[in-house]
């Protein structure tokens, strides 16, 4: 092996040190929270109040400014969950487990927002609240995967023991991500094909696209802030639990030195 391997490995693990993570995330969190609030507000006010109507959907198109960023967070959140699970399985680092358990409920909420706003959008435009087409069904499967991950991690008394089965579930579920993304291209669906991420120009006019992208950026900051806050809380909870266990062991058997 070359001599560069060791420092590179250390630099990756630098951010995995819980103490350093607490300091770093403590500095980042207020900024992420403030930006999440402010940028989302700019994007939503612009989109809901000032962006132009759509040529075929009129004002109903404004549901998009919540629906599409929520869908991005639902899928991006699951990608983060899958990456954390991979790191947990390969490097067995507790911080990766904490990241996974912190992402899952947030991702589930954004997926629920995506499904509900999509349903509210479908009724006036398509004429139905719900259909079992490939896009809608695969996003519902994503929601159930999030719920399954939450249920699995909370089924164990010791969070450390839930890490491996939950990580395996999350990685198996990652197969839905390409299915969701490409469902509208592979099969006929009621949902329209991709508007923004296309090989040619986006099929969304710039006057509608800008507030959408800004709302998406704001949702991303908000998502990151909530996940960081949850991770910090989880680390403090684990520390408190370890301290209480140590104290309990101390009072029961004073001669044993807690690890």
């Amino acid at each position: 092996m070359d001599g560069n391997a060791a420092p590179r490995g250390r630099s990756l693990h630098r951010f995995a040190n819980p103490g350093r993570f607490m300091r770093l995330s403590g500095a980042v969190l207020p900024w992420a929270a403030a930006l999440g609030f402010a940028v989302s507000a700019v994007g939503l006010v612009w989109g809901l109040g000032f962006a132009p109507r759509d040529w075929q959907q009129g004002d109903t198109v404004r549901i998009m400014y919540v629906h599409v960023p929520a869908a991005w967070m639902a899928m991006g959140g699951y990608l983060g969950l899958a990456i954390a699970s991979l790191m947990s399985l390969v490097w067995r680092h507790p911080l990766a487990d904490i990241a996974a358990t912190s992402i899952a409920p947030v991702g589930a909420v954004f997926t629920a927002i995506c499904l509900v706003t999509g349903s509210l959008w479908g009724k006036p435009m398509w004429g139905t609240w719900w259909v079992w087409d490939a896009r809608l069904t695969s996003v519902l499967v994503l929601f159930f995967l999030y719920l399954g991950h939450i249920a699995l991690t909370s089924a164990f008394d010791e969070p450390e023991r839930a890490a491996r089965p939950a990580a395996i579930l999350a990685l198996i579920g990652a197969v839905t991500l390409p299915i969701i993304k490409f469902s509208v291209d592979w099969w006929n669906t009621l949902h329209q094909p991709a508007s923004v991420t296309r090989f040619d120009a986006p099929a969304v006019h710039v006057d509608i696209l800008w507030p959408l992208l800004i709302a998406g950026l704001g949702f991303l900051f908000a998502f990151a802030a909530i996940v960081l806050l949850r991770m910090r809380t989880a680390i403090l909870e684990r520390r408190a639990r370890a301290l209480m266990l140590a104290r309990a062991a101390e009072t029961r058997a004073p001669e044993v030195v807690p690890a």
Partner: protein
Amino acid sequence: MSRKKRRLWILLLCGLGLGTATALTLTAFEDSLVFFFSPSDLAAKPMPPDRPFRVGGLVEAGSVSRSTNAEGRMETAFLVTDGTRSLRVTYTGILPDLFREGQGVVAEGRLRPDGSFAASTVLARHDETYMPPEVADALKRAGHWQPGQPPPPAALWNTLTAPATN
């Protein structure tokens, strides 16, 4: 090979196997995963009569005829086309607001003996194009967009530098 590297390789192989299995399954069940068939699909693979299914495409320009039946309900007949073939669809009831000529639709129902399609539900299917009405009007005035046809490709009108106004 370190244990970490071995675990990474095992996971990558598992992922590859899972991906292949999923791809094969999805390909095998393609016919039940599509939400609707196009008129060309139906010409290539005819549906047995009395089996409900969905047909989708664009409402052909100039093909919509409306009437009121004996019970006072609205009856609509139109052609659903995919550009190559078209299918005659009849529907009794209220259509979605987006329904118009050139609009995407998905009709659920079954074939009649005469080869036309009796729809029990008609859903509107809009495309992925989002633009202000003024831009749509400008494109139509400039002759880039024929009425009753799908919108022109986005590269024509959605550029950051020169909006398509002329």
